[in-house]
């Protein structure tokens, strides 16, 4: 079981790297847009390197960033109020955290199912994005993959939080 959990952690780390790369690319896209617009303005329109679709690229870049980094950051990316439970034993707190993480996992799988349904209907209707004409079914599938990973990571983390005493071994560092 520990090997499976560790394997899921490594896979989610891979997803996290994709998310980080998407974040940097999103930043670069915005910079290129600003730069080309500035050149256009400075040259009075003589040099036109501007392009359409940056709005959509940023939107989908953000989607990939978060859909793919949420699984790995699930354990560390939560805010809890611990003033009322601070004196409870670590074991109880760990089991409770495991239960809550399990709920995140369930949410991940529910979202996966719905995103796949959305992808199917987008595929049937031939829905595309407005500027770049990207097919929406692919975008939904990409998001669904991230949410599926969130579901798997949620179940794996929940298992280790509830049943392993040394769950820090498979929780791992951020990268």
């Amino acid at each position, binding site marked *: 079981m520990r090997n499976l959990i560790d394997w899921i952690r490594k896979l989610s780390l891979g997803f996290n790297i994709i998310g980080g790369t998407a974040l940097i690319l999103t*930043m670069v896209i915005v910079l290129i847009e600003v730069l080309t617009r500035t050149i256009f303005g400075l040259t009075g329109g003589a040099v036109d390197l501007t392009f359409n679709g940056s709005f959509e690229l940023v939107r989908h870049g953000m989607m990939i960033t978060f859909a793919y980094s949420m699984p790995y950051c699930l354990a560390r990316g939560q805010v809890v109020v611990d003033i009322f439970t601070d004196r409870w034993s670590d074991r109880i707190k760990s089991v409770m955290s495991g239960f809550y993480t399990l709920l995140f996992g369930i949410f991940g799988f529910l979202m996966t199912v719905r995103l796949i349904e959305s992808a199917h209907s987008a595929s049937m209707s031939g829905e595309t994005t407005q500027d770049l004409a990207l097919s929406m079914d692919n975008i939904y599938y990409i998001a669904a993959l991230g949410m599926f990973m969130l579901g798997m990571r949620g179940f794996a983390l929940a298992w280790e939080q509830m049943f392993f005493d040394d769950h820090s071994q498979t929780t791992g560092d951020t990268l």
Partner: protein
Amino acid sequence: MSSQLIGFICVAGMLGMIALRMPIALGMAIAGFVGFGWIVAFDPAISILESGAFETISNYDFSPIPMFIFMGVLASKARMSAELFHGAKTLFGAWRGGMALAAVMSCGIFSAISGSSLATAASMSKVALPEMKKNGYADSLATGTLAAGGTLGIMIPPSIALLLYGLLTEQSVGDMFIAGIIPGFMGLLLYMVAIAITVKIFPQLATPGEATTLRQKLSGLKGLIPFGGIFALIIGGIYGGIFTPTEAASVGAFGALIIALYRGMNRRDFIEAVAETLVVSTMIFFMVIGAEIFSVFLSVSQVSNSLVNTVNELNLSPIMILMCILAFYIVLGMVMDSIAMLLLTVPIVYPLAMAAGFDPIWFGIVTVITVELGLITPPIGMNVFVINSVAKDVRITSIFKGVIPFVLSDIVRLALIIGFPVLALGLL
């Protein structure tokens, strides 16, 4: 059962679950999901889950959040804190309490760039605290200054809290940032006044620094230029209509990256910066998704309308309503993180404030200042505990004693902005 009653049951249930260590994001999402399912049906509730998550993470308007966070993390990696503190220190030279003034000033600039109160308190305390202690500053003044100084960034733009408030209430993020400029710098100025008054009354708390020449002062200013430049670029760009918030955030992050690379940031530091950005951004996005799902449920349940009607029946004056809201925030701020508190409460409180006839942007500024107070007030005061983790030999009570002048100055600032809304709205 009426939808309002279901609404109140779910809100109470959510608060109960959050008190039992449930992550705030999950608490909001579950309350929203169950409440919506109970009132409407569970199949559409699952669709709300999907659309809430998908629409949030692919929302262009939210894209400045990770960029501003990235900029702040890179600024930390560029070792900005030491340079800022030493630069500011030379400016105040031989003034009694000059180091505390320098610490507040550098905290203000650092937190404006980093956008994180906790990161500011942690980074600045490592640099400024040993020097203040070495120069005979009282523990209470030294630690209190740093704990309070960290809170300045929540108001000085670019601020994640103002950005989230703007998005939640459909106000222009640019307007929110511009409205935050005067209150933010007022906070910085009033903190400096608080230090000056404190050391005037209790001169034993601080010592005078070394006198510096004009040349040294000008040389010290050099340390403030790179990140001060980024700050000016972001705010000037938004104010001048050159950049959207997303563009300003990306340009700021890129500028911070160039400075960090110039100062020797290596590949490992860069990867760590991206990873840290993802963790912090994800934390906020989980909560934003929860808040989106919760907001849909709130509108279906009519809880906010019911609250507005109840308050109207009480015939309270607008100022009384405001005082009740602020008291609620101060109490909540004692146990909850500032961003979480905003995301959780704004959907409920905002309709109440609008029904009372408040300006939405002014109300946002007042709310964020009040939320900020929670970071340094007992019993939680998260910044106080961050400072305590660096200064383990200083007692918590001593730090809380040290923040009293700053809490008072925040109350003065709040009173001024409530009394003179032009202070927040004047630049718009």
